């Protein structure tokens, strides 16, 4: 079923969308255009000399084996962040949905981490795991599990996944909770009368009805992991050990803001932009079709 509002006036709809269009143009299209432009230039740090180099920045990227390797790192990281933060958020949302007393209190606490800046999240988790005096590192050590994210690639990856996912749980929680509350109670009650166990009711009724929310969150989480996590990585691991936690967006940040290579950094942003456009198109074309809103 299509919903369509008809305006009598020819200009009113344009006026109404104008503020949003202005924001999109200024904050999305303009910077994206700048990135496209810079990606074909080579500049010195201060921008006093600037040379058109065509595809050279892109050529250099794809000749670099470590850049190609960081695609894999990014895929692993994004999947872990999306999977862990979404499943944890779903669990918390289902539980919070049942709480009768102090519901507001729990919800507030669960939403809180969303306000934490990515860098702060990175530092926070780093302090928990800093060996040997971080609380969790100390506890692990006591259990005979030495923790060393400075040299162990798996530990380092786990650390940034935890820091990045923890922040995102709040966001996912909010949407899952809203999704749960919009599921008609009558369906669940009918199933209960038919003798379905709570476990069965969840997987056959609640979870499928949450699919639009889950799908939306999957897109949002992957985009989050792709773009918003460079601060977390910088604070927690600097992309190390070696390049084992150097995800794509961290390299964009490092090359642009630490190494002052604007052209190379812009070329990487363009690649990232293409990836996310492709991901979104694929998901909306093929996945959304199967989901009934």
């Amino acid at each position, binding site marked *: 079923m299509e919903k369509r509002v008809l305006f009598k006036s020819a200009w009113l709809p344009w006026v109404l969308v104008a503020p949003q269009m202005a924001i999109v143009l200024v904050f999305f299209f303009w910077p994206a255009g700048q990135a496209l432009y810079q990606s074909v230039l080579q500049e010195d*740090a201060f*921008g*006093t*000399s600037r040379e058109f180099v065509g595809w050279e920045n892109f050529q250099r990227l794809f000749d670099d084996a470590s850049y190609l390797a960081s695609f894999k790192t990014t895929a692993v990281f994004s999947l872990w962040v999306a999977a862990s933060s979404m499943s944890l958020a779903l669990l918390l949302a289902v539980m919070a949905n049942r709480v009768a007393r102090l519901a507001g209190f729990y919800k507030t606490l669960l939403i809180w981490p969303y306000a934490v800046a990515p860098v702060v999240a990175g530092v926070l988790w780093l302090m928990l795991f800093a060996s040997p005096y971080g609380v969790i590192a100390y506890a692990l050590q006591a259990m005979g599990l030495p923790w060393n994210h*400075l*040299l162990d690639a798996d530990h380092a990856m786990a650390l940034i996944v935890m820091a990045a996912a923890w922040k995102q749980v709040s966001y996912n929680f909010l949407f899952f909770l809203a999704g749960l509350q919009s599921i008609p109670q009558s369906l669940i009650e009918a199933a209960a009368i038919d003798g379905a166990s709570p476990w069965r009711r969840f997987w056959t009724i609640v979870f499928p009805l949450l699919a639009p929310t889950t799908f939306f969150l999957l897109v949002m989480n992957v985009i989050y992991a792709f773009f918003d996590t460079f601060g977390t990585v910088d604070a927690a691991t*600097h992309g*190390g050990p070696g*390049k084992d936690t150097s995800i794509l967006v961290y390299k964009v940040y490092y090359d642009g*803001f630490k190494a002052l290579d604007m052209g190379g950094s812009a070329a990487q942003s363009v690649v990232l932009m293409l990836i996310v456009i492709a991901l979104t198109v694929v998901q909306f074309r093929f996945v959304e079709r199967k989901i009934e809103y």
Partner: protein
Amino acid sequence: MRSKAKLAIAALSALMLVPAQAQTEIQWWHSMGGALGEWVNDLARDFNASQKDYKVTPTFKGSYDESMTAAIAAFRAGNAPHILQVFEVGTATMMASKGAIKPVTEVMKEGGQKFDQNAYVPAVAGYYTAPNGQMLSFPFNSSTPVFHYNKDAFKAAGLDPEKPPTTWPEVALAAAKLKASGHKCPFTTSWISWTQLESFSAWHNVLFASKNNGFDGLDTRLVFNSPLHVRHIENLANMAKSGLFVYKGRGNAADATFVSGECAMATGSSALYGNVVRNGKFGYGIGTLPYYPDVQGAPQNTVIGGASLWVMNGKKATDYKGVAAFFSYLSQPEVAAKSHQRTGYLPVTKASFELTDKSGFYKKNPGTDVSVTQMIRKTTDKSRGVRLGNFVQVRTIIDEELEGVWAGKKAPKEALDLAVKRGNEQLERFQKANKS
């Protein structure tokens, strides 16, 4: 009427507060936090109190790379600060950005200040001097790597607290004793590339990069995969395997572990001095950087780190007069000597060193002269320092490759070869980008 009169009085008194002659404000962006930040603020305050025409306003802009990025963004937008503190690895980038900076020699000349380049400590000023003899930036806070050790831990391990190890074999022996006494972190280091490869090369009078470490041209290439370098990294890798050397992360992350007492010995910047004196709760000793006694010519001298002050281009002539006056103030023997004694940074001028020496400071604070004696030696072409383009990336590459060694995943030779190869790609790019 009454309220109008009140308003008039208020307006008048507000006017009175403004000095008759407007001061010229000099913006100074720096990266000195904590105890060092207080030092910078004190310098500006004292300079402002010493005269009436100029007002230096220091602003903390985050770590070295953050303040450099901020200044670049500001320069592109046309509001760069007058003075920018840039770390030594940014030197080649600043030198290549001719339109963005104004050489200090020019600033001093136009500012009408007496300026004698020979008054500055050559090992320090030489690093910031162009091939044509022009001093490009003001050598504000230069440090050099030294060997820090915890005297209390030495005593507990049965080592002589007044005799720090001076060679790498001795370091390994001392570390073994510390470990036997129950110490979890006998030895660590901050700034791996700076202490273990760059200074290591100069200290043993071998090259880190060709073309005299980049001083003689942009076509310089890395050469730190020689047998001597491999031997040293192998030695450290063995120490890491047996728990004698503990890796504590990139940059200066290891500094905190020495100050807290967690690690007993550390190679790091001489400027750690002020921090340890203030926050360390143990007997603190400084020794010279260790070396291999069988290498001919060792020990030579160590290379500088720290930062210098660059003057940004495109400001008014009166502003530059203020900058020149401020630099003259910083070079005054008393001011420079006080800075040196307070921070552990190297003395800027020869006179300030002599003043400190005469005052008996080195005798009262044993170890504080280590950095000076390591630096104030006749340098060779191989030991003058390391000046490379894209140096930030080169250092990160070294960090990345060596982490593979400490984790036991890569052989030292393999890691150094790879670091040289990857680093050279960066040098080639810098050479290409700055041909003209």
